[in-house]
């Protein structure tokens, strides 16, 4: 079973991802900020990470850079309400595989997961 790590400070968003992905048979683990995400990644070794950008403690871009430095093989999809071009470019340059702009679109999320982990 493929495992997906969802990193978002909004509990509501983590629950939405969990409901959607578990209904399709994926295993879901969560973190509510970047610092926690790094720890959970080490422990769980997920196949894919959905990473929010605006978070307290450690934001998504900083987390992405740190995660890729420690685990170059990590596959990360940024998930954010911030659809500004410069942020998307920064994320891709920092090693993100893809970028999903909210609002939450279940079909798009599932297509993205299938694309990267099958």
């Amino acid at each position, binding site marked *: 079973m493929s495992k997906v790590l969802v990193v978002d400070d909004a509990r509501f968003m983590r629950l939405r991802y969990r409901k959607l992905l578990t209904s399709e048979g994926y295993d879901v683990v969560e973190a509510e900020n970047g610092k926690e995400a790094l720890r959970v990644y080490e422990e769980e070794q997920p196949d894919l990470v959905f990473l929010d950008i605006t978070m307290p403690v450690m934001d998504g871009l900083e987390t992405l850079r740190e995660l890729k430095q420690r685990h170059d093989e990590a596959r990360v999809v940024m998930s954010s309400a911030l659809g500004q071009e*410069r942020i998307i470019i920064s994320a891709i340059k920092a090693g993100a595989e893809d970028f999903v702009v*909210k609002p939450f679109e279940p079909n798009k999320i599932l297509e993205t997961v299938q694309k990267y982990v099958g």
Partner: protein
Amino acid sequence: MSMSVKFINPFISAACSVLEAEADAQITRGKVSLQKSGTTSKDVTVALGVTGDVKGGVFYGFSEQTARALVSEMLGEPVPIFDELAESGIAEMGNVITGLATAELEQKGYLCRIAPPTLVTGRGVYISTLDFHRLVMPLETQYGDIELNVALKPVNDSTCTGQ
């Protein structure tokens, strides 16, 4: 008023897009008005600060019932009480609307950042950043009314949205 419309329109478009996409909302736009009051007028207010080429604040007001109904629809399950999960959901909605609007502002040449949303519960609560002229647009939906407040001005320009 032309400057006002320039900044409020992206937020109206974004609010309608997000409400339609997330909650299948049927929306009727009300009339834009200019208001100045430092106190909240709804049960629940989501506040977001904006900085960059445009600065100020954006506020979304809901009755508690409307907020619960929207979160329930987005989540696909009943939300009987306005708890931490409901707070998280309605704050996220404000965040997504503002994010979408700022992407449109970027296309118009205004690069800006938004702060994480702050949730204020209760009517009549004083918010200092609310206490200046702002444009208010009511949006009627089947879940209840949503009050969109935009108080933004370009940096290096003293012309406020509502002035």
